């Protein structure tokens, strides 16, 4: 279930600048407002804000509350290798190291702040092909630019991949378009 807040109403945000540009000033203002209200009353369940990371707004037409929006942001997911994941494979895939490393989503610190996320919060990632729920952690310093997410290869990244390989034998496994929903 989405954590939702009151009163953002209808926002119309345009696409602003580069792919990694953070959300527009309108979006920032809205996010700030969202964060403040979330802190003051996290259980308020009134509206659903739909704000893609590049500034696009998405309403949920099937929502029982037509004027409400859900907190969904668009990102590009880069699954990849980590040395900890590699060590985890050696220890055993059912052991703690591998399971922890492949079930942890890295988010850019600026995105964490804008989305009001703290380490350990759970989000739902949805691609065209699947869905997965995963806890988040802030990426180290400047390792990850805003707008990108990183996760170690594993079950979660596989769930978000499609089966089509476009005649190459290789499913598109990096640079996946995903929507992030705060749970």
């Amino acid at each position, binding site marked *: 279930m989405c954590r939702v807040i009151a009163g953002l109403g209808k926002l119309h945000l345009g696409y602003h600048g580069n792919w990694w540009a953070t959300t527009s000033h309108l979006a920032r203002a809205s996010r700030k407002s969202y964060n403040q209200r979330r802190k003051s009353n996290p259980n308020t369940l009134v509206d659903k804000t739909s704000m893609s990371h590049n500034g696009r707004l998405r309403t949920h037409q099937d929502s029982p509350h037509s004027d409400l929006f859900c907190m969904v942001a668009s990102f590009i997911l880069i699954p990849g290798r980590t040395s900890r994941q590699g060590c985890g494979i050696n220890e055993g*895939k059912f052991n703690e190291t591998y399971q922890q490393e492949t079930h942890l989503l890295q988010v850019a610190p600026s995105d964490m702040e804008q989305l009001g996320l703290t380490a350990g919060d759970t989000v739902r990632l949805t691609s065209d092909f699947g869905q997965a729920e995963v806890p988040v952690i802030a990426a180290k310093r400047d390792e990850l630019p805003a707008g990108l997410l990183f996760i170690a290869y594993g079950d979660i990244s596989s769930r978000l991949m499609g089966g089509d390989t476009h005649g190459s034998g290789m499913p598109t496994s990096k640079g996946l378009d995903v929507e992030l929903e705060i749970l």
Partner: protein
Amino acid sequence: MAVSPPLDAKQLDNQVEHKVVQDATCTFCGCVCDDIDLHVEGDKIVDAKRACVLGSSWFLNHEIEHRPSCHIDGNPAEVAQGVERAAQILAQSKYPLIYGLSDTTSESQRVAVSIADWIDGTVDTTTSVCHGPSGMAFQGVGEVTCSLGEVRNRADMVMFWGSNPAESHPRHFTKYSLMPKGMFVPNGRKDRTAVIVDVRKTKSAKAADIFVQIKPRSDFEGLWTLRALAQDIELDADQVLADTGYPLDKWQDLMDRMKRARFGVIFFGMGLTMTRGKHANSEALLALTRDMNRHTRFVCKPNRGHGNVTGADNVVAWRTGYPFGVNMSRGYPRFNPGEYTASDVLARGEADAAMIIASDPMGNFSQPAREHLKSIPYIAFDPKETPTTRHSAVAFTVATYGINVPGTVYRMDDVPIPLRPAFESPHPSDLELLTNIEKRVRELKKQQSAVKKHRPSLRPA
């Protein structure tokens, strides 16, 4: 034939033997470092000198697995029963798939390809979901390349594109590419320029002199920008920035440095092959490398992941003429990525049986492929328990190559390297099992042929 090992740990403890295995070979990643000194106590490696974090983890975590060598439908069984069941599954299948092979010896890979031939099956390796697109690009463009030894001794311009060796190949920098003092780079790192091209500032980027941060999914555009600059073609700065996320003047500076280099090398990773563009990205990089040879000596090399994935390419190529994704159903090999590659064969629901050797598609394939694999009978070989072994009809716990089993593996630069095992395992090797399965499959196929010959023909005489 080996049977399920005894599980008496006390007996094993009493027979502790201390020894040092010099110049052992690490088979975790494609670097295949063969200078590791292993300190062995009985059936446990207690120290791995010179190994990196991944190598240490590889050696120190591969003790003998105290579980049966064979499971059939999740229940412990004798190895002979497992071999018989495996052979029956493969011989009766109409569209069998043999997949994996990147973490086993080339001797085993050779037998696995033979089995695929006997059963008119499809054989594919983890290359298809690794550098398979590069394999396609090699056929289109060719590969200007060299050995890692040449890189170590000559390269003064070292580039990494979509590759993060600090995490995936931790000794790459120190043993081959950046740090070593070589014949023509006597000052080591000081004589080399390091460039990282990536969408995120990875740990490897911190070791670079130049970090080129491009837009996600713009590798193709970045590579063609460099190709244009290599030929002094004028480009629109705004368009380059919009397409690649990196300014033209910096691309130009990079190209100038590349032209000035005496010996340049580009290592490329799955940042190219797994993202949009795939083989077109690899083709662009191979073509750029070829173009650069008009100005100076330039080579490229894919940074291969698994210990013997390069061996799999080599063995499948010299057995069938193609490196991966090969179908034998017509009695001769056919190659077509997208049609005969494992991910596709499974995601489309075509294979009706499979044999998975030393890989874990249930852990890393797409969801449709995993769901189909789960629905068909398959045989799995792995030293450890994985999601793939858990769902298999027949699961073999095998001895670990390089630790328990001798043989040959190929380093990422196609150099074959022998393995020096540390201690014996009570579990059978991949080679032993595959040899027995092949033998039994041939018997079954012979019987099937005999039955077909005696079947009355419905065709008019």
